[in-house]
């Protein structure tokens, strides 16, 4: 049941919003979390994509591992369709956002937000990206206690090695890079991913001759089946909080509900921020208006404090559509880790020699479990995908046309560009002998890049977000350097063919559109609206160096929760 007023409203139950909600609720405040998408694995919504279900959930008893098993099928196409940013109703398509060229934005709607798709990767920012690049008003050291707290909640540990990680580590070592064993990374090198996924049961070792079921309680922790991009319910049969992947719906949402101070209201799209403005003074946030995505009904709720955590696209969109005070940096400075894909293909005999079997089998192990860090440049990570997602991420899009139109000449890759037709079928016939490396560059915030709204092009929630992104020359050079390193690592690991996508800008990591120091102050309260805070990746002052942003976003959201209590309660 949603009340008329709360101490705090958090707009968005994605990766970060539940962290702030948890902090506020632990301090004894009443908190309403409004989420545009559905609530999976909750007994109030047994068929969240088919029926409106209940109104809100306020009890950890509502959470059900069995329902999560049923709803998270791990079938890639179905789960992409269910989770990508759109209304819960399966008969209705995605919410439309404009993105330049043939790139795309990959975000999810639902409690857990894009951590429903994320692969559990939880590294910290590169210290230099915060202390040396000149974007941040706070220091890396300010984040350290919050990193530790988040890492404990998310059970962050070194990712396990299966065949594909061993292949990558052999390549990186042979290419002359060092193994990094640190949490605070200042030099280039490779390491296992710090993953927010419970480590696998030791009985799953290749030498242990395990022939039992891969379900709970026979297996506890990760079961080493690919599936994080598709939600990941493993191990099946486990209670909700014993699921291996510590996405925010499994880590922070139960912790928040357990305080008995939090109500989560899914299927609620916030369309306005309510304010009061004493004459000649700064506006003060007093509540929000939201629309039920099933019924279309509109409600208003009041609060002492409003926290925007709708993500780096929707938070500025909401600001702009709510007609809050103009600020030159609202929506601006977008970073997306301007990325690319470099794929290696192996001959069976070479694999036999390197990893002791003729296939890589990217469907085994965690999706992303090995990485290469390069502070100042970005990162690389191995990516295991099922073939459908692999095809669209690795081969379906390119900024340089089709592979048959390009002659890479002396480039370190054999082919470059989009693949289709017979070329695609021939290549994907070797799906079990390929390994993809995702290039993630440390792109920098530029004011021209960001989110605006299109007056006149509105959906049911107002003018739609229009996203602009054009990398700088420096961004391109960083990405090219990483692609060359990736190709070198793959060659050193024995790949017989290397393909580079030259991907168009695609937003998998989305940040820095409401930057700390520009739109919000050091406590993440808006300069131009009192009692309005932002607690999502949009407040990151840059792209944290190219490291996966979830840990930093959550650490900052935890810090913001504490600051809100100190300032206003």
């Amino acid at each position, binding site marked *: 049941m949603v009340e008329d007023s709360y101490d705090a409203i958090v707009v968005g139950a994605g990766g970060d919003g539940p962290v702030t909600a948890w902090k506020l609720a632990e301090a004894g405040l009443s908190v309403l979390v409004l989420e545009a998408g559905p609530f999976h694995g909750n007994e109030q919504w047994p068929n969240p994509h088919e029926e409106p279900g209940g109104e809100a959930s306020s009890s950890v008893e509502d959470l059900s591992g069995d329902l999560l098993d049923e709803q998270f099928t791990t079938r890639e196409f179905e789960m992409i369709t269910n989770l990508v940013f*759109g209304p819960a109703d399966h008969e209705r398509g995605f919410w439309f956002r404009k993105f330049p060229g043939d790139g795309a934005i990959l975000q999810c709607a639902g409690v857990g937000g894009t951590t429903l798709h994320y692969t559990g990767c939880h590294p910290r920012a590169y210290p230099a990206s915060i202390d040396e690049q000149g974007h941040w008003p706070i220091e890396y050291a300010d984040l350290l206690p919050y990193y530790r707290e988040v890492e404990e909640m998310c059970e962050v540990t070194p990712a396990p090695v299966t065949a594909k990680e061993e292949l990558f580590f052999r390549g990186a070592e042979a290419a002359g890079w060092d193994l990094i064993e640190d949490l605070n990374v200042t030099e280039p090198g490779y390491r296992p991913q710090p993953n927010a996924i419970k480590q696998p049961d030791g009985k799953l070792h290749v030498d242990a001759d395990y022939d039992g079921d891969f379900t709970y309680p026979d297996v506890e922790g990760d079961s080493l089946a690919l599936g994080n991009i598709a939600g990941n319910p493993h191990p099946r049969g486990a209670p909700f909080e014993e699921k291996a992947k510590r996405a925010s719906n499994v880590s922070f949402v139960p912790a928040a509900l357990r305080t008995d101070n939090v109500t989560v209201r899914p299927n609620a799209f916030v369309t306005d921020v309510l304010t009061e403005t004493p004459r000649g003074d700064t506006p003060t946030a007093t509540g929000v208006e939201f629309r039920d995505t099933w019924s279309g009904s509109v409600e208003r709720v009041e609060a002492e404090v409003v926290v925007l955590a709708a993500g780096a696209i929707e938070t500025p969109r909401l600001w702009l559509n709510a007609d809050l005070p103009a600020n030159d940096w609202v929506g601006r400075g977008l970073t997306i880790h301007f990325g690319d894909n470099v794929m290696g293909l192996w001959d069976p005999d070479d694999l036999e020699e390197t990893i002791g079997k003729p296939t890589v089998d990217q469907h085994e192990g965690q999706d992303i479990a090995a990485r290469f860090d390069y502070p*100042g440049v970005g990162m690389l990570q191995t990516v295991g995908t099922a073939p459908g997602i692999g095809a669209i991420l690795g081969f379906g899009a390119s900024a340089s046309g089709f592979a048959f*139109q390009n002659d890479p000449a002396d480039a370190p890759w054999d082919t470059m560009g989009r693949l289709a037709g017979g070329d695609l079928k021939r290549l994907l016939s070797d799906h079990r002998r390929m390994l993809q490396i995702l290039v993630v560059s440390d792109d920098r915030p530029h004011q021209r890049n960001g989110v605006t709204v299109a007056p006149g092009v509105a959906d049911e929630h107002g003018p739609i977000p229009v996203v602009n992104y054009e990398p700088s020359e420096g961004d391109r050079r960083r990405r090219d350097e990483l692609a060359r390193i990736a190709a070198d690592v793959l060659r050193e690991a024995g790949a017989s063919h290397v393909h580079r996508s030259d991907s168009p800008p695609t937003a998998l990591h989305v940040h820095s559109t409401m930057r700390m120091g520009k739109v919000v102050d050091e406590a993440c309260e808006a300069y131009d609206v009192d009692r309005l805070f932002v607690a999502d990746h949009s407040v990151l002052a840059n792209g944290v160096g190219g490291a996966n942003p979830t840990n930093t976003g959550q650490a900052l959201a935890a810090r913001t929760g504490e600051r809100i209590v100190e300032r206003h309660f």
Partner: protein
Amino acid sequence: MVTSRIDEWVTTTWRSVASTWGLLLEFAGIGPDVDPHTRVTFRAIADAVVPETPALAEELGPEHVAGGLAVDLDEFAITYVDDGFQFGLPHLGPQGNMPIADPIAHVLDTAALTLLERGDNEEEPSLDRALSLLGPDDPSAAKTESAVGPFAKLSRRDRLRAIAILDEFEVEFSPTDHDLLELDAGLVGQLVVGFMEMIYYSEWQGYDDFTEPPSRRNHPNDPDAVQSWRQTGFPGFANGYAALRGYVGTDDGPLGDGDAWTTIDETTGVRIRRESGSFRENDYDTGGYEEPFPVESG
């Protein structure tokens, strides 16, 4: 300039098609049957992106011959793009989804004409080639002939070249002079290549009916039940694998622990060990940081 002319044409087409569809949906409450031009164009897309490849039989095996048309990829692609995006606007029908298969087909024809105008096609367009794409359930060739657009007449490679032309629509956005379609030509390429590939290589073909609600869909999860899985060797979705090799670490470092399972490099002592250690909470010093690449302002 070609681009702006295409923009204009596309915008006009979009508006007329969208409003026609909107009216039909509004008055009839349902959408009409698939337009013959859209049908043959989408068959041409599926045939170019995932073609039938007899040449692969000898090289890779007979299971690699069949393409997208054999599993009606074109039909599902039309359904998918028509149901895939929504604005929630009443004139677009009860679900508010925005049907875009017809405009996509017209955009591709425009791209094909541009390719031909530039003389960048490698083979001559052919009506017979387009008609040969028709399936047994399609209307006769005589009835379809008038519905065949320039895109479907191109050779497979030339169809891909035409799609690549759409990537030139890198139109700059101006907040005061927006035009939805003008901004979205790149999306067409993404939908007809990227999404088509994702659908084909995913589990999609194994469902009895994907348009059913999620709780009523059945999927056999049998590697033999999906044509593309037979071609990629994907074994289907599993609950787990006994695939653990251990944890990477050095002899004297904190990351890996226990016996070495294998050695990555003897000189550096990097090995895969049986047990996990943990990352080190290290002191850090960024004082010597230098930008590896120049950073521009802006």
